[in-house]
């Protein structure tokens, strides 16, 4: 267990008015690890993602990326330091072409590119997510899953140290789900470090090394996947009896 720690969350707390959305949360992600972040609706998962990516500011606590405190930085700086993300509600750039959407992820981010080099990299990524054929099309024609693929390609364009995927698999039907899981598998095989928020247990089981379970803003379990999902507390709060 001496793999280097990529991300360290230290007693992170986030308040919205009177509501404690994230309460004194601690966890780490080590290199090449795929971490599942799960929990009931409203337990604070997206908020954690927002805190890591800088979309929201912590109320207290700190977040470190490879020892460097990033929780006091604005989102764009965090992105430049190597954290990329996708959004729970897909956000694509509608007036840009598909390829420009991907390039946008790599021009200002961690590994920067511009000009022909950027185009090549983007085409390569599009091929990887299966969108090569649509590279020069406007984005309006994309179906939902293609939008999700596009967002993933954009997040990868900066070649980030840490990738945050917020319910990237949600809304896919079983067949598409299979494709999606395979795609993330391939990222895992590349050795990427990923935090995955999902409600799809099949995906969590097959993709994650470890998972952190949240409920009402606090961590209720943290550990190896199969074991964690058997935790009675997790079953009570999240899985329900039927899935157990």
């Amino acid at each position: 267990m001496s793999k280097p720690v990529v991300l360290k969350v230290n007693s992170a707390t986030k308040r919205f008015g009177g509501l404690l959305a994230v309460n004194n949360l601690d966890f780490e992600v080590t290199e090449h690890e795929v971490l599942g972040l799960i929990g009931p609706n409203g337990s604070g998962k997206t908020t954690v993602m927002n805190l890591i990516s800088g979309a929201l500011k912590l109320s207290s606590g700190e977040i470190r990326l490879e020892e460097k405190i990033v929780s006091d930085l604005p989102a764009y700086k965090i992105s430049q330091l190597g954290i990329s993300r996708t959004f729970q509600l897909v956000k694509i750039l509608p007036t840009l072409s598909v390829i420009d959407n991907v390039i946008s992820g790599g021009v200002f981010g961690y590994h920067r590119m511009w000009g022909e080099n950027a185009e090549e990299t983007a085409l390569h990524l599009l091929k990887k997510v299966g969108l090569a054929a649509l590279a020069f099309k406007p984005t309006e024609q994309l179906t939902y899953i293609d939008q999700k693929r596009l967002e993933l390609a954009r997040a990868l364009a900066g070649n980030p140290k840490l990738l945050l995927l917020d319910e990237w698999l949600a809304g896919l039907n079983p067949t598409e789900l299979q494709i999606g899981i395979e795609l993330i598998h391939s990222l895992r095989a590349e050795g990427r470090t990923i935090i995955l928020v999902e409600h799809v247990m099949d995906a969590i089981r097959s993709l994650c090394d470890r998972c952190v379970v949240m409920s009402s803003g606090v961590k209720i379990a943290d550990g190896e996947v199969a074991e964690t999902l058997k935790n009675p507390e997790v079953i009570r709060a999240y899985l329900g009896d039927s899935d157990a």
Partner: protein
Amino acid sequence: MLRIENMSVAYGHHRALDNVSMKVDSGEIVVVLGANGAGKSTLLKAIGGMIPAGNGFKASINGLQIQNKKPHTIVEAGIALVPEGRGVFGELSVGENLKLGANPKRARKHENKNLKTVFDLFPVLARRKNQLVRTMSGGEQQMVAIGRAIMSQPDIMMFDEPSLGLSPLLTTEVFKVLTLLKKTGVGILLVEQNARQSLAIADRGYLLENGHIGQSGLARDLIEDEAVRKAYLGG
């Protein structure tokens, strides 16, 4: 009873729905399955009057013609839609959302009775009556949306992927609620990605492929169907 005949919808040149016909009886759950972009949401929105459908189609509920009507008229006629993304009023409180649900004239005199039903189904809403819906979690908002639809005293309820983004626990909850609603005599038209769980509670099902109905039948037959298993149940 809801009856749709020859419904077609186009976005510009793109034909999202092509001559779809279907019906939903009271007291039954009908599930519509289909890939992303197959046109499921379009179907529900078109029935609900939120997007215009092409000429020549007919829609009726209990014999009342509702084609080309505005959403508010269709709600009055007894069809309630819980749309994709819930469509709740984030800036209003839970109570106000529910009260607005009882806005149709047909529902006003049943307001108190329906409110009790909703609170029985979702006790958490009773406790959070004054909370702004925007500040609630996804699952709670889903409850508000369903509750609001119940408040409008519908004969037919339409759900667009009600389990989307819900935890396994809540998903099970929601499907339980659908069965309870069905027992009160409401007809339910359910659009879902979660084929396994939705077919399990449904009476009948339609498969929507590229805007037209590919297959239809009793739910228990569909579950057994080889093609269906392959496409929608993951092998």
